């Protein structure tokens, strides 16, 4: 079986020893590390937005970095991505930000897109702020909108960079539940890969696999 995400012998910035990591299907995995420890490079490596000096990253068995540019872009649309901060387009409203990947990469009609966006915004509890631009929204609303955008295509794999930074425990828990996409017999419906400096303790039961980067080595946490 092909893992949704596999880092093979990659060198993290500032560290010599290569790192290998498999993200199992239907699980949520979190890799913790201090700021600028190199952990924050993992999401960018996963989507081939940046390339490690050594090693490779496989997403559903495919090395995106080796694909031609247009194929790599099309492949990335199969993966949900929440960049650090939020990466929202500042001259679009929150609802237009959520609609953007659907408008760009799907053949859905405008009516279907509007309907789907409305559902996403309601699920993420930001329907009231839908018409606001990111600059007029709170940090939590922006993060929720960015997650809604990442989930727009209902991807099987979601990559979240620093998703809980600055959020309340309750908001973080809600975000994690929505990223997991509900439960199946095998675990969460989606595979979730997250990186960050810290995560609220209350989330530990909902994150099956956790690692911490210590002196360039990934240590699995119990």
């Amino acid at each position, binding site marked *: 079986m092909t893992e949704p995400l596999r880092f093979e012998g990659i060198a993290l910035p500032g560290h010599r020893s290569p790192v290998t990591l498999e993200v199992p299907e239907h699980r949520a995995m979190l890799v913790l590390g201090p700021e600028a420890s190199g952990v924050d490079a993992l999401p960018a490596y996963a989507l081939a937005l940046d390339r490690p000096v050594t090693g490779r990253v496989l997403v559903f068995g495919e090395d995106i970095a080796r694909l031609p540019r247009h194929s790599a872009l099309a492949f990335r649309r199969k993966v949900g991505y929440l960049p650090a901060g939020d990466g929202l387009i500042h001259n679009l409203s929150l609802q237009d930000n959520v609609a*953007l990947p659907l408008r760009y990469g799907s053949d859905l009609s405008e009516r279907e897109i509007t309907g789907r966006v409305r559902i996403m915004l309601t699920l993420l509890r930001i329907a009231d702020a839908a018409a606001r631009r990111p600059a007029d929204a709170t940090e939590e609303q922006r993060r929720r909108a960015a997650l809604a955008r990442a989930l727009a295509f209902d991807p099987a794999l979601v990559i979240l960079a620093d998703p809980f930074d600055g959020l309340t425990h309750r908001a973080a828990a809600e975000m994690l539940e929505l990223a997991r996409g509900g439960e199946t017999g095998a675990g969460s419906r989606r595979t979730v890969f997250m990186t960050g400096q810290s995560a609220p303790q209350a989330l530990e039961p909902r994150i099956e696999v956790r690692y911490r980067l210590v002196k360039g080595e990934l240590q699995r946490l119990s």
Partner: protein
Amino acid sequence: MIAPVAKLGQGVARSIAWLGALARFFFETLVAARWLPRAGRRVAFRVLLKQVWFTALQALPIIIVLSSILSFLVISQATRELGRLGATELLGRLMVVAIVRELGPLITALAVAGRSGTAIAAELATNKVMGEVNALEGMGIDPLHYHVLPRFGAVILSVLGLIIVFDMTAIFSGMVAAGANGMTGERYFEIVLASLTFHDVWLTVAKALVFGVIVGTIPSFHGLAVHGSPTEIPVAASQAAVGSILAIFLCSGLFVLLLV
């Protein structure tokens, strides 16, 4: 002795590298157009319309004012001076060559480069610094499709449209100036239209396209070339303005040398 030569050589090498990077960016943008998804055209079209609104429609007042004043000044003085020499027929050629064909495209392109070129460079640089460009890539949206292609098309259309407005306004303003100096409107239009050839129209359209490509490419290139520091934003805007203005003047000179 060697140091100034080395400095000069470094400057030339930097300019060549800049030209190479700019040419690569331009062709990458053209190639990227091939891979724009069908649904993505809708998104790009929306961005294009917004850019046309800002670059063309909101610039109309300044273009009309510039054109009216320039044409009024030139034609009122020319009517007087040429009238004294008994050569008022030359007024038509002066209007067509100096204003419609040369100054119209040049001043319009400079106005667009100064107004929209700097805005495009600053906007794209801000997007890059804020992580929007990286986020687009991560979502599988090509920033060339979302940011560059629509602006490229919008600037070409806007420059073309604004040059037409500039030239039409100049012709009508010239009529007022000629009228103030004793020439009838009929006579004015007769000599201006008699001087206008297909070559002049073709050259004006060609200039509009070339200047549009310049103002569509150079600001986007500088805007997306920043690395991530906010201090790079004003530098990108300034480089975009200087690069565009220089390229517009150079191309204007080349047009005169090669095609007139």
